[in-house]
């Protein structure tokens, strides 16, 4: 609680400082105008596009809200689970939790996405950095290919035994136990 309040106050101070800086800056900034106007001609159509888009979608949703009927029936407000609602999903605080296979893919994604970013910096400046850049990028790619090889060899990219038939799982488990 205290931390939150102190964070808020710091944020507010920062905001004030920014405003102060803005007032002070005004005089010394004219040189930037040409550079910035270029940025502006590129971004304002996108901003306008975004605003028009959101307004249109909101209008469509509102229209369907007005036009559509409102009905009531006995089982309408239950999830589509063929009448058998076995578990409460996590969003409403239920106990259902899922295996984390999918989560692993999300972790790999973050790592390789960062790699992509580094490589983007390389390819855009490809002609400037030449052979030195190429050798460096090859080492960079090589290291991550080794990482990929590693996670493949230890079987991290497979969905493992949970998708085998249950009997197979039992056999595996017994073998594991007798190996101990």
């Amino acid at each position: 609680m205290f931390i939150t309040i102190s964070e808020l106050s710091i944020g507010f101070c920062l905001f004030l400082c920014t405003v102060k800086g803005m007032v002070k800056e005004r005089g010394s900034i004219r040189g930037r105008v040409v550079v910035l106007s270029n940025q502006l001609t590129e971004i304002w159509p996108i901003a306008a596009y975004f605003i028009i888009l959101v307004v249109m979608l909101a209008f469509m949703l509102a229209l369907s809200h007005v036009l559509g009927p409102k009905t009531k029936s006995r089982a309408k407000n239950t999830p589509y689970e063929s009448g058998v609602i076995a578990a409460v999903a996590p969003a409403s605080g239920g106990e259902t939790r899922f295996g984390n296979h999918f989560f692993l893919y999300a972790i790999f994604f973050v790592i390789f996405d960062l790699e992509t970013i580094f490589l983007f910096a390389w390819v855009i400046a490809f002609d400037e950095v030449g052979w030195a850049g190429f050798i460096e990028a090859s080492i960079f790619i090589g290291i991550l290919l080794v990482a990929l090889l590693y996670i493949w060899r230890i079987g991290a990219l497979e969905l493992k035994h949970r998708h085998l038939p249950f009997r197979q799982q039992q056999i595996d488990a017994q073998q594991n136990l007798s190996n101990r």
Partner: protein
Amino acid sequence: MFEYLWQLEPLWKVVEISVMISLLIPIAATLVWVERRMIGIWQDRYGPNRVGPFGILQPLADLLKILGKEDWVPPFSDRLVFVLAPIIGAVCVLMSFAVVPFSPSIGVSDLNIGLLFFLAMASLAVYSVVLAGWASNSKYAMLGGMRAAAQTVSYEVFMGLSVMGVVLLTGTFNLREIVLAQTDGWLIQTQFVGFFVFLIAGIAESHRLPFDLPEAETELTAGFHTEYSGLKFALFFLSEYLGVTLISAMSVVLFFGGWLMPEPLASWLPPLFWFILKISFFVMFFILLRTSLPRPRFDQLLSFGWLVMLPLALLNLLVTALLRLGGII
């Protein structure tokens, strides 16, 4: 004089933007009809042929019907996020069109980081499916959302890597400059591996068959949009077809020279028509894929991505770089 023009130019731009948005959505709706007709033909049946000539007014009928449906938000869901999710999906796909250069003079913006903008919007589109699955608060939707997220984020990496060869050869992120750099020859000549990876990643990103596992009806009812109905469902549907158009448009821009054509052909039609013609070709290809290929299993899909597409895309990049340094391309 100059001052006067400066005041008028924004107005024209806004008109152009409005026309574009109001054309894109009917085009996506018509695509639904085209797909149903084509699948009908390929499966030796008629498809929708009652409303208007050849059934071409079917999309309009569908739209009117959907507007008359109840705007139902399930009481067991997280209402705010539930409504927000389809909007996020539609906005992300439509925003990507803002950087696509349609012809020498048409296009919303020549952003200097256009390609990064496209990839950024593709990465934000993940929120739509994840949040839809989470907010629906039902098991099928949850599982579908999770599958969709794992699939989309994996293939996003390969998509980013596959377009790097293009950036390497053209030296810019600006999509208009990428098109203009292909005046002497389309990039597909050297980047066919990149194109292959890009196309497959694009199919996976827009959840099209054969990669529609997040909404595989035999396993998950309708996946992440199980609880959606009416216009909100239509928005998901629309995003999917807009996604198909977007991936086709990006393939054309990046690998097939955008609106450019070799000389005897170029003078026959205006550039915009060539662009649309090329896009239609790819859209047809997507529809043909849907009718001809079965769905893989989910773990096969992911391991195919990580073990085949990723090394392939990296190798393509390295080979392209070597050839470029050797002065061959």
